[in-house]
């Protein structure tokens, strides 16, 4: 198989050279955050560290971790390492309670992101002869614009349709002759089924880049079979950059992490950096980001890394599929949802947190989230109108705080099962 490679010099760099490059870039980012981000300077000073103590990747374990909570504590711009005048783009993902997690990009960051997404497009055999339908959401979410810039960079024709409106998506797939699709895997399956329902068997689609939520090999097979395409897994998170932190090549044997820009680690239960092959919590140090560089950012995604050579010729390490989370985060239709956000939303409506339970299911191809809430006596009304208004207020509050649509089901007190007095907050019935 002929593999398209966007930047062979970097992507196929011998690993010893790559390591030397990482050594230099790590020293540089440590110096930058020490000088410009009080959070990191304080942390390093408490550890008795100065940038001089970091000689390269071998010293990575000396450096402090960064947690999502740290980003929240410095909301909105406290983690930025450059003045606002240098920031050209702001994205945000939903935070753990109420406030979003904010990221800022310099023009250099945007350029590097486009480069990495261009590499990702080539990984999926998408180039200038392709028509790329970007059905990720555009907006604060990084998916849409991330894919957009990468597809433009390789010279493809980009259709920035954004997410949703399935009927319109189908029309453009047919009329515009889209050859590649970028969206969440569950939405790809949804589109595939919609095409089938319309009796459309022939499209020009040949590749898809799917990510922003966990999926399985079984889903890949189904998408590939139904759409007659290669379905490529992509990974990213806005805190670190957005989509394109890692991506599969056509070998479909794990996602190459762009190691000239990110230093990945697998962190064990005792916070030690584990060797390749072992399973643990994935962490990233951003080597080239200027707007909001992060040291050892804990993704809380469980996976493994391998540096075994890949048939495509790229030398960058590959990460396996994300096998789960080391925290309680849920991914619903591409949106990160924490139970604490739901709790916060309920608090906003009721003034106290009632007993509640989140039930996640996959109905057909799309995730659904139902929040069951035990009815507090003070919200009991004798009219249906008031009760339905209460349900709507809760739905709206969850949408506002967790950026996800949930259905709300009021329950009788005691209806939510408790074990040792504590209700189980999340029932995830999806088979992932």
């Amino acid at each position, binding site marked *: 198989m002929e593999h398209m490679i966007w930047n062979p010099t970097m992507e196929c760099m011998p690993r010893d050279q790559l390591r030397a490059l990482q050594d230099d870039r790590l020293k540089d980012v440590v110096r930058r955050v020490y000088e410009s981000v009080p959070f990191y300077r304080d942390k390093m000073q408490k550890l008795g560290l100065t940038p001089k103590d970091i000689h390269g990747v071998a010293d990575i374990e000396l450096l402090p971790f960064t947690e999502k909570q740290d980003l929240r504590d410095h909301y909105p711009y406290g983690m930025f390492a450059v003045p606002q005048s240098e920031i050209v783009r702001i994205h945000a993902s939903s935070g753990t309670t109420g406030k979003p997690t904010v990221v800022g990009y310099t023009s250099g960051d945007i350029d590097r992101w486009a480069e990495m997404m261009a590499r990702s497009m080539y990984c999926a055999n998408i180039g200038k002869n392709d028509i790329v339908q970007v059905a990720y959401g555009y907006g604060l979410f990084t998916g849409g614009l991330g894919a957009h810039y990468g597809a433009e960079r390789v010279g493809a024709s980009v259709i920035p349709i954004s997410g949703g409106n399935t009927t319109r998506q189908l029309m453009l797939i047919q009329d515009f002759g889209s050859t590649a699709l970028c969206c969440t895997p569950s939405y790809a399956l949804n589109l595939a089924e919609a095409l089938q329902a319309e009796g459309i068997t022939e499209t020009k689609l040949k590749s898809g880049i799917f990510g922003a939520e966990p999926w399985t090999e079984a889903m890949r097979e189904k998408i590939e079979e139904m759409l007659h395409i290669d379905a490529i897994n992509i990974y990213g998170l806005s805190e670190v950059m957005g989509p394109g932190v890692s991506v599969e090549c056509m070998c479909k044997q794990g996602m190459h992490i762009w190691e000239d820009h990110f230093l990945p680690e697998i962190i064990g239960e005792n916070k030690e950096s584990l060797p390749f092959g072992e399973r643990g919590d994935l962490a990233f140090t951003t080597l080239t980001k200027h707007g909001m560089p992060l040291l050892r950012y804990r993704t809380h995604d469980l996976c493994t890394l391998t540096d075994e050579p890949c048939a495509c010729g790229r030398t960058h390490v590959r990460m396996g599929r994300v096998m789960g989370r080391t925290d309680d985060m849920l991914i619903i239709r591409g949106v990160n949802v924490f139970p604490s956000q739901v709790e916060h939303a309920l608090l906003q409506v009721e003034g106290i947190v009632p007993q509640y339970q989140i039930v996640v299911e996959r109905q057909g191809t799309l995730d659904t989230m139902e929040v069951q809430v035990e009815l507090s006596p003070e919200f*009991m009304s*004798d*009219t249906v109108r008031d009760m339905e208004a209460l349900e709507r207020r809760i739905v709206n509050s969850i949408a506002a705080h967790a950026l996800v649509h949930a259905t709300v089901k009021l329950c009788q*007190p005691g209806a939510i099962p408790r074990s040792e007095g504590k209700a189980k907050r999340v029932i995830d019935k999806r088979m992932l």
Partner: protein
Amino acid sequence: MYVKQISVFIENTPGRLADFTKVLEDAGIDLVSLSIADTTNFGILRGIVADPEKARETLAQHGYTVKVTDVLAVCVPDRPGGLAGILEKLAEKNIALEYLYSFVRKAGDHALIIVRVDQPEEAVRVLTDAGIKLLSQDEVRAL
């Protein structure tokens, strides 16, 4: 001149209503009037009982969410047009009905309805002025 109504949240799953009525049976509570407003997921059971406070306590002890609301128990001439005459009086004064349901028992030759309106005081005045009888809590208890 109000009557106390209990409203109980009932989940829309099989057996819930049966559980509820069993609690009333065990406590010796007699429902003298009953209506259920239903939605997809839940129902609101509204009822008139002889002793609403006892009913509320008993049901709360059994985990039910209960609300006690003031409603009107209106005597309606038991003939065609009897109800129309009463509703016209309320409509003339722009008093909106929240809901209405009928009583199981009669008061003499009159039918009884339970009415919840948006302006209870005004409704009592209008109906009393029109010579329409409203039952008191004691009268309901004696039914």
